[in-house]
């Protein structure tokens, strides 16, 4: 792993009240690569993802210690605002959460708060809807409330919303869990496309997807980062028994 590290953590610990959730996590996520985050349910994948864009700030019972960096910037530096960090790090959530606005405004809103030139917004909305393979389905009803879309369409809208902002990093929490296999493959194409200019971190429970898509894979278990390496190494030659059992499906 000779690449630049885009995101990294050192000695990261996270507590929800007294519950120790992330335990001494040290990871360096390479720039312009796709990194898959795998591990059993409840092991802390979502929690780790949310430390990167400071979404835990909303809860007053969370305690975070250790270092979390984007490039050479400490994400939790008190001099840096969470808003600034979130403008650089986009996120697609585990459950689709479109704004209670129409389809067009769902994407335009993010562009507006990021001070995009208003004349460019319509074009960027269309582009990001095309990229997330939603354009053909919605191009005639852009003013329809987004909640009237199907679950899978909503998730693609949320992907379009994140992609439209062209952040440096995109965090994706099981973006395909609500999608049919065909749209999943298309989203994978999009993510591969994104890698050219962005760093992508994707949580997935689908081992095939992790292998098809990612350059690097991190395996987490009970809040610890057990193993991190190229996807080839993790799936073909895991060093750790836990990893081996998990990727071969002998888990439990």
């Amino acid at each position, binding site marked *: 792993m000779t690449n630049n590290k885009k995101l990294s953590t050192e000695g990261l610990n996270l507590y929800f009240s007294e519950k120790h959730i992330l335990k001494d996590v040290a990871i360096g996520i390479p720039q312009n690569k796709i990194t898959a985050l795998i591990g059993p349910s409840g092991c802390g994948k979502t929690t780790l993802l949310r430390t990167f864009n400071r979404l835990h700030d*909303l809860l007053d019972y969370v305690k975070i210690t250790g270092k979390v960096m984007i490039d050479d910037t400490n994400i939790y530096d008190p001099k840096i605002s*969470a*808003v600034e960090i*979130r403008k650089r790090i*986009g996120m697609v*959530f585990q459950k689709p959460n479109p*704004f*209670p606005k129409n389809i067009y405004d769902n994407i335009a809103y993010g562009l507006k*708060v*990021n001070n995009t030139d208003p004349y460019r917004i319509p074009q960027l909305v269309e582009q990001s809807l095309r990229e997330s393979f939603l354009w053909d389905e919605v191009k005639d009803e852009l003013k329809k409330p987004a909640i009237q879309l199907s679950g899978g369409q909503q998730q693609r809208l949320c992907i379009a919303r994140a992609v439209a902002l062209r952040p440096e990093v995109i965090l994706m929490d099981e973006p395909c869990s609500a999608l049919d296999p065909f749209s999943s493959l298309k989203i994978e194409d999009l993510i591969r496309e994104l890698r050219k200019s962005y760093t992508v971190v994707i949580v997935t429970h689908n081992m095939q997807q992790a292998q098809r898509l990612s350059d690097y894979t991190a395996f987490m278990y009970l809040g610890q980062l057990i193993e991190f390496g190229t996807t080839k190494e993790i799936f073909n030659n895991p060093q750790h028994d836990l990893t081996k059992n998990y990727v071969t499906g002998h888990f439990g």
Partner: protein
Amino acid sequence: MKKFINYLNWSMLAGSTIIVCLFLIVILIELFSKGLPAITIDFIFKYPSEGMTKGGIFPAIIGTVLVTLLTTAFAVPFGIACAIYLGEYAGNSRTTRLIRAAIRNLSGIPSIIYGLFGLALFVQAMRLGTSLFSAGLTLGLLSLPYIITTTEESLKRVPTTTREAALAVGATQFEMIKDVVLPVALPDILTGIVLTLSRAAGETAPILFTGVTFYTSGLPGSVTQEFMALPYHLYILSTQHQSVEQVRPLAYGTAVVLISVVFILNLVAFYMRYKRRRYD
């Protein structure tokens, strides 16, 4: 035996419901049968005349509308601002919990106390005199705790996932509140406001010492003047008039108008809630 107890339970619940409904129906029938005949175009649009034994209640209707508008102007902006601060910014410390409890208790204070407080503060200390302005401020004070509480609750019902969606695209907390949280909560907030105002419009005690009067020869030309109001007019007609029996139909007519105003406001609130449910 079990069946019998079930039946007994059911009949007691059903019986109580029927009794309550019956009361309501009797009150409405009584009011409308005696009040409706008094309601004519003249009754709505004319001034009272001949010692209030003839004529209409026009100035009282306008007075109630004006004082409610003033109440809205005072209570709604402050109430919403307070609720946003308490619900979105203040967090959940011991102090904010204390403030919340205090606000909740304020809504339990009898309205006559607000009347006395308004007399002491607005009429006397601030030298606003007995006027529309003082009465509007007093009713505004009375309405504030309700508006703050219902607004804060409406804000709380906006799901975290929706808030996170806004923050994740780089919205500031203020942008999130303004562009996402408030629009979602608005129908609920408006419902609370309308119900609160319909309560304020029917109050007598808070305006009693602060601005209402039993007769004016014209409409209030400015907020510094006294005004007539429906609930107080009703009170005068039914207890203070020298020939109470003679003006009874007028009292019932006034009651019907007052009830209709409150009822229409409630319908508006109901409609907003209904529309909101369909949208979800």
